[in-house]
């Protein structure tokens, strides 16, 4: 609403400058001899590479094959390996005849996430029931054991669903921890400040793999006998905490950018610390550090591969395992390209969405 008012204000348009494709090309590619030379060289290399890729990936590629021999005879890519192996790559060691449950799980997950990212759904009355329903449905589908679904323990989970669960879990648990750590680090209370600093600095200084090792092998020794915390949950929380330590520093940067006057205005309205923090400071700070937060969220997506240390196979490690098959082993490049494409789709979607949110922030829509 506010935006359209502004636009109407400036109904007169600026004069259109002389333009057109030739002028644009000239300006950007052929404005001098040196630049023209450079343009031609780069264009030649690009065309040569694209031609090679086209030949390898499309023209000479084998799309369907009864066996690996057809691929060995061809000069191009062997996409048949993906047709052959897509099930264990995508779903890991989950029982083969139950894979439909995972497909359903992914559909529910994507629907929920896409809905949650749409501003029209940003109401407590929609988000809370939706997430409760989604988490319940996904838990039932993944574990089974009810409604006639066979029980599948976490030790048999794998592939894309595992990647999704680890990633979502670590971001959902990690963000609140990150916010608390960032607030703690700037807290007026020395105890909160000290704890946050020690926590952040000690965990950031250690490789993730070490933290996971402690969570898996050493942490259980401290638990009372008979008590057990699910390994997958431990891994998720460890990745979450590691993610939170980095994210906390980003959020702290955002907090530092909020002028003192905002705190003073809130104080003079008699708002409490938590009211000021939750309603005035954090909404502004998180908007400021959105681009940097997106960075760490995308990085967290790739940390999920560390589950290999408890013998679980996320989509990347599942691929490594699957490609041990001596018949198909030589076509690992195609398999990894397939996985890379999946990561790319998720990563691009995330960063495009983040950019959209930034533009909403810029025009004051959120």
């Amino acid at each position: 609403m506010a935006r359209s008012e502004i636009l109407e204000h400036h109904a007169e348009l600026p004069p259109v400058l002389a333009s057109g494709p030739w002028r644009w090309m000239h300006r950007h590619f052929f404005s001098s001899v040196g630049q023209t030379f450079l343009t031609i060289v780069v264009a030649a290399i690009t065309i040569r590479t694209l031609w090679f890729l086209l030949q390898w990936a499309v023209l000479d590629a084998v799309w369907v094959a009864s066996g690996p021999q057809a691929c060995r005879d061809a000069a191009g890519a062997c996409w048949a390996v993906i047709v052959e192996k897509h099930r264990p790559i995508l779903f890991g060691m989950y029982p083969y005849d139950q894979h439909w449950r995972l497909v359903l799980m992914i559909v529910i997950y994507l629907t929920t996430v896409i809905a949650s990212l749409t501003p029209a759904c940003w109401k407590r009355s929609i988000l809370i029931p939706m997430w409760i329903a989604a988490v319940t449905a996904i838990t039932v589908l993944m574990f089974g054991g009810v409604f006639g679904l066979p029980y599948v323990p976490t030790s048999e989970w794998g592939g894309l669903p595992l990647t999704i669960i680890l990633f979502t879990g670590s971001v959902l648990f990690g963000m609140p921890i990150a916010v608390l750590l960032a607030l703690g680090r700037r807290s007026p209370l020395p105890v909160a400040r000290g704890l946050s600093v020690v926590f952040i600095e000690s965990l950031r200084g250690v490789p993730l793999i070490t933290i996971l090792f402690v969570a898996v092998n050493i942490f259980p020794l401290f638990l009372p006998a008979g008590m057990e915390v699910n390994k997958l949950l431990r891994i998720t929380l460890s990745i979450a905490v590691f993610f939170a330590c980095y994210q906390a520093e980003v959020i702290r940067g955002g907090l530092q950018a909020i002028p003192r006057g905002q705190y003073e205005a809130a104080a003079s309205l008699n708002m409490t610390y938590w009211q000021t923090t939750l309603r005035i400071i954090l909404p502004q700070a998180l908007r400021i550090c959105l681009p940097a937060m997106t960075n760490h969220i995308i990085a967290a997506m790739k940390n999920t591969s560390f589950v290999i240390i408890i013998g679980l196979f996320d989509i990347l490690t599942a691929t490594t395992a699957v490609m041990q098959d001596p018949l198909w082993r030589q076509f690992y490049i195609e398999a990894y390209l397939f996985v890379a494409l999946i990561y790319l789709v998720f990563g691009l979607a995330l960063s495009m969405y983040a950019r959209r949110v930034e533009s909403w922030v810029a025009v004051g829509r959120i």
Partner: protein
Amino acid sequence: MSGVSKWYGTFKVLNEVSLEIQRGERVVVCGPSGSGKSTLIRCINRLEEHQKGDIYVKGIELNDSVKNIAAIRSSLGMVFQSFNLFPHLTVLENLTIGPTLVRHMKRKDAEERAMHFLRKVRIPEQAHKYPLQLSGGQQQRVAIARSLCMEPEIMLFDEPTSALDPEMIKEVLDTMIELAESGMTMIVVTHEMGFARTVADNVILMADGNIVERAEPGEFFSHPKHERTRTFLDQILKH
């Protein structure tokens, strides 16, 4: 307020300041830059902590007690030089956040009250814009309305017009004059001597953390008692 002192590090900003202000009184505080004017009024609502002396607002002592601070702040409104509106909230939300969050008012009632005060400061049509889409003068009037929505008994102003262009100064001063006419107790730090002359019951001159002179405006401008006041007025009125 009696014998109030405040230090920033080893630098003494307020030097045993004593000051009494009656209900309904309008006091203008002026003085050279760095004389401690802002510090003085910021001490009254605990944005700064005084280290010596006593401050009482409506008989409540301002000390470390959170309860007392909250009680005192709830009867005080504050307007800042740099407006300090919340940029992520619309004008209307800026006005309702205090009443709904702190006073637990119903959203609808809070919005009604907000629109009432927006009409008072004559910008009801801006309710759904964001602060940064308004002119400085409009922003400052929103800030005044935001304070009024908390129904304060005393309003503190810290150079409310010194960040504004001349045309906008007038609209803000007009709003403040109307507020004064409604009987509000006001403490105003400003260099607008015209405002002081017409509105103030008392004008105070501060210099180096001391109250040098306190007099009625007629007295203050025509027969200042102190040399310091005279040089200050000379400087200010020359422009």
